Structure formats: structure tokens, C-alpha cells
């Protein structure tokens, strides 16, 4: 069945469109995440709904150009409303965004109901903008998406180092004399454009996740902005194409939620498994550090006993060490033996285990004493 699906021209078109949307979102989402604009993104995408409806009403049907135009218009008006509320009221940013999001979304839902009550062929298409339906993408739509993708990529490429500095450190960018306001405006317009381009596939409700998730996942794996942007773009494209394919297999299955679930699965894997930043890695290295520390404590304790008895080859007894360190030590001692820092010895007539520091063990204990990285 998968082969049948993939060989269908329609499915391939839809998957290409969804991959473009996902890739675009992944690419621009990096900057939304780093500039802490995920709530703003959510507001713009919810506020696009009334614009979608207006576009629908104006051309009397589902035309991606008209819908995107309307969505971009109300999305940007909403973003400006946030700015205005910030200037005129003492409300905190999250409250400003929350209010604007709800008001515009409510207007959108009212318009949506009105359009659906009007009946006719048009009403079938419009509800898909809530949760997204990639299957509605036509070849013409894919061309529009491709154009938006190219515009976004060119913008990033031409202004790459300036955008990097403005994203990381806008104060310094401004002190150096870069036109920070203009670059930020460019990025915000691009963000709005990306959101409205993604609405048909992902829907207004979940679009923000398509934007944010790939960037969050990508950050786990790489440590430079260029690589992060590319990896995020690939994750977004994968989630988009995969989501479109899966939703094509089930009748009427909305695309948005599937894409989001795929992208979030990648996020989950990345948070767990990524080197250095991943939880598994961190747990393992914490464990290694704990082992090293407990080994170090034993070495220091043996060193102290040797000093106290004025005998570098003093055989430390198991029970004595366990008393000093307050816990049982069999595994630590085996690790220390394996790394050649201590050596088991017999201490006649006692039958309990004893160890002495090897040459290497004495050196390490001495280093620990000098640098002070030890117990107490």
C-alpha cells in the first residue's frame, strides 16, 4: 500500500509541499526559538484564522494565495497589537500575547461558523485550516510554498552574519552600528510568512509546534548556528513529508497532529539520546564522575592511613576503610584494582582482605591532596 501511495502523483505533490512547509518551519523556527518568540509565533498563527476566513470570503473559495494574503494581514496586525498593548499598558508580555491570541482566534472561529452556515462548496475546505490538511495542497500551492522557501533561504544567506549577531547579542549589534531594528523586522516578517505558508498543512492550532519542535531537537545535536539551521530544516522536512504520507493513508486524518507527533518524537529522542546535552549522556557522565569521586576517596583514605603509620606500603584493611568512608566498598575496590591503583595483599595472620597503594595509586593520591580535589 505504501508503494501504491508513493507512486501516486497526488501523494508525491502533497508530500513535496509538506516537506517544503516542514523545512521552511524548521529553518525559520531556529530563529523563533533563539529569539524567544514561540509565544509570539503561536499568537500570529491563531490570529491568522480570521485572515484565512477573509481571504475565503473575498475570492469565494479556497485559494492559497488569497488565504495566505489574508492570514499574513491579520497575523501582522495581531503582532502590531501586541506591540501597541506593550506601549500603552503595564501588562506583561505573556498576558499581552495571551489576550491578543484569544481575541483574534475568537473572531476567526466566529467567521468560520458564518462561512460554514452559508453553505455551498466552499465550506468543505475551510475547516481544514484549524488542524491542517496537506491533501488539499495542489501543484500550484506547492509552487507558492517553494517560492516562500527560496525567499526565506536567500534572506538568511545574504544577511547570515548580521542575523547571527542580532539573534545572539542585539545590544552589541546596535552598538556596532548595525540596523538591528530592520533586521529584526525582516526576521519577524519572515516568521509570519512561514506561519501562514504552513497553515494549510499544519493548521492554526498546531502550527507553532511545527515551528518550534525541529529547532529544539536540532539544538541537542549540534553546536553552531549554521548546522542547527540545516539539521532543523531536515527534521522539519522529514516530519512534514512523513505526516503527509501517514495522513494520506487514513481517510480524513488531519495532517497537523501527525506532523506534530512525528516532530515531537524526534524532540523526545534528541532530549534523551543526544551526545553531551542528552539526558542519557548526562546520567552516564554523572555516574562516571561519582565513581571517580568514590575511588578518589578510597585512595585518599589509604594515603592517610599510610601517612599515619609512616609506612607507604601500609596494608589497609577492608573493615577499616569501610568504617572511615561509611559504606561497603567491594565494587570500588575492584575498579581500583583493575585500574592498577591498588593491589590486594595478604596480611598474616588476619584473613580479611587488605590492599596497598601501588606506585600509580600513591601518585594519584598525592596529586589529589595537592590540588584539593578530594573529600572535605
Amino acid at each position, binding site marked *: 500500500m505504501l508503494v501504491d501511495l508513493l507512486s501516486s502523483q497526488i501523494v508525491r505533490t502533497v508530500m513535496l509541499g509538506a516537506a517544503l512547509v516542514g523545512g521552511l518551519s524548521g529553518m525559520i523556527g531556529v530563529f523563533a526559538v*533563539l529569539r524567544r518568540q514561540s509565544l509570539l509565533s503561536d499568537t500570529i498563527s491563531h490570529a491568522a484564522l480570521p485572515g484565512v476566513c477573509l481571504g475565503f470570503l473575498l475570492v469565494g473559495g479556497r485559494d492559497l494565495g488569497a488565504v495566505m494574503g489574508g492570514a499574513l494581514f491579520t497575523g501582522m496586525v495581531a503582532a502590531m497589537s501586541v506591540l501597541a498593548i506593550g506601549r500603552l499598558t503595564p501588562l506583561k508580555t505573556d498576558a499581552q500575547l495571551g489576550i491578543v491570541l484569544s481575541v483574534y482566534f475568537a473572531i476567526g472561529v466566529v467567521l468560520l461558523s458564518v462561512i460554514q452556515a452559508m453553505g455551498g462548496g466552499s465550506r468543505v475546505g475551510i475547516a481544514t485550516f484549524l488542524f491542517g490538511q496537506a491533501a488539499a495542497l495542489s501543484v500550484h500551492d506547492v509552487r507558492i510554498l517553494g517560492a516562500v522557501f527560496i525567499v526565506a533561504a536567500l534572506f538568511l544567506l*545574504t*544577511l547570515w*552574519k*548580521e542575523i*547571527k*549577531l542580532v*539573534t*545572539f*547579542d542585539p*545590544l*552589541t*549589534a*546596535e*552598538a*556596532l*552600528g*548595525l540596523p538591528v531594528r530592520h533586521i529584526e523586522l525582516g526576521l519577524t516578517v519572515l516568521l509570519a510568512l512561514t506561519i501562514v505558508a504552513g497553515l494549510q498543512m499544519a493548521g492554526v492550532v498546531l502550527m507553532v509546534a511545527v515551528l518550534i519542535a525541529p529547532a529544539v531537537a536540532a*539544538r541537542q545535536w*549540534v*553546536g*553552531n*548556528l549554521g*548546522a*542547527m539551521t540545516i539539521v532543523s530544516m531536515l527534521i522539519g522536512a522529514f516530519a512534514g513529508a512523513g505526516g503527509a504520507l501517514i495522513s494520506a493513508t487514513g481517510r480524513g486524518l488531519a495532517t497537523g497532529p501527525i506532523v506534530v507527533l512525528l516532530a515531537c518524537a524526534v524532540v523526545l529522542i534528541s532530549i534523551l539520546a543526544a551526545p553531551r546535552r542528552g539526558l542519557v549522556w548526562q546520567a552516564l557522565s554523572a555516574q562516571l564522575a561519582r565513581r571517580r569521586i568514590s575511588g578518589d576517596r578510597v585512595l585518599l583514605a589509604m594515603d592517610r592511613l599510610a601517612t599515619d603509620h609512616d609506612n607507604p606500603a601500609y596494608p589497609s584493611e577492608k573493615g577499616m576503610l569501610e568504617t572511615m568512608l561509611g559504606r561497603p566498598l567491594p565494587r570500588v575496590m575492584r575498579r581500583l584494582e583493575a585500574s592498577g591503583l591498588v593491589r590486594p595483599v595478604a596480611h598474616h595472620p588476619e584473613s580479611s582482605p587488605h590492599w596497598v597503594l601501588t606506585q600509580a595509586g600513591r601518585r594519584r593520591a598525592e596529586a589529589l591532596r595537592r590540588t584539593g580535589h578530594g573529600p572535605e
Partner: protein
Amino acid sequence: MAAGSDLHEPGLALHIEDLTVRYGATVALWDIDLDIPPGRLVAIVGPNGSGKSTLLKAVVGLLRPVAGHVRIFGQPISRARSRVAYVHQRAEVDWDFPATVLEVVTMGLYRRIGWLRPVRKTHRRAAMEALAEVGMEAFAERQIGQLSGGQQQRVFIARALIQQADLVLLDEPMAGVDAVSEDIILSLLRNLRDRGKSVVVVHHDLSTVRRRFDWMALLNRRLIAQGEMHDVYTPANLKAAYGGQMAVFADTDAEETAPSERVGGQL
């Protein structure tokens, strides 16, 4: 306020006249007149919220004053950008940003490199030299998120050094940094001054300011005093700037400084 009044504008590293800056209804700076001679290591000192950061931001044009003007070597900031380097407080950026130490230092050159031009080998070499000056060349390829506070601060200072500015402004470069970094930063600043540069530092610690700087401006929304350290560092001036908060400072000083340096001892 008498110390700098006989100097003329172009001969001054920094000339500030009638400067007033507001955030909405909050007046952060009121009618500041400040003249900083070139080639000095200058401390801007005042209690929390006294407008020290605001002053630096207004000087580099990040804030638009409601009144007054600023001249740098006689010129407005718009024409003096290439002669000024500004190091803001460390916490103003997100250190989890994906970038290496070397990359951040080259950012100081972005404007000089110009639009549409990539960062080249010569720029990276200049950045390595700046990193060597702050003792961080071994960290060039390190992620900035893995640095300690003092190392972060040194990276920012390297980014300022690379700009080869004549006036360097730093906002609390020694706050929350380790002793090694503090020594390195201090000797770098002295070195800059000895090379004829003008260095203006917002300094948070009254107990160390007298030893470390040779010129001082005391600020508390208004300018309290300015001039040579030994003229300005007087109990009366400090009291005028810090008022009732003095006791707090005297207490913390006791742990950190030799008795002769204690502000409490002076009062």
C-alpha cells in the same frame, strides 16, 4: 564637579552635557554633566539602580536621551562608532546560544567586514590574537555555554579588544568572576590605558575601586562628583552617593579588604 570643567570637547574622550534619560515615567539619569579626559582608567560608581548601565547605553546610542548630548573625542556617536567598543553586562545574552568562543570574538569585526562579505582567515587570526591577550586561546573552539563566568567575560573583552577602539566602555566586567579572571581583566584594562586608550568601567565594588582606578565618577541618578580618584573618593562624596546604604557596604568590605582599604574605616 569642578575637576573636568576647564577641558574642551575635542580633547575629551567623553563629553556629556545636560544628559537626561527616562524609561517611561522612571527618570534614570537627571541632568548629567560629565567630562572624561583621554588615557585614563575611569570607574563609574554608584548604588544599584543609580543609572550606571543606563549611562553607558546612552553613550553608545542604545538609548535616546530626552535631553542633552554626548560627544566622543568631539564627535557624536553616529560618527564615532569605529572608535568605541562597548561591553555590556554578561547576563544580557543567552549563553546557550550555539556558537564557539572564536565565533563570538569575530563578531566584533562584523561591521568592519561589511555586508555580504564572509568571515575570512585573517579575521579569525585577529580573533585568535585577541583571545591570546585574554588568556583564552586554548578555548577557541569551545562552546560558549561551557565557559565559567570569568571566561565568558574575557571572551566579551576579547571581542572588544579586536575592535581596536580608542574608548572602551565596560559594564561591571569584574562582577561575579573568579580571582584569576579578575586579575587578567584588570591588567588588560591597565595595559589598554598605558597604550593611551581611554577605559571607562562601571564598577560595583566600593572596596576595590580606589586601588584599581585612577579617575572616578560617582553617580546616583544625578552626578555626585567626578575627577581624580584621590579628590573624589571622600567620605562626604560616598555618603552623598550611597546615603543610608553605606552601612551595608562597610559590612561587606570587612570580609574582602585590608583594614586600610575599608570604607567603614574612612567614615
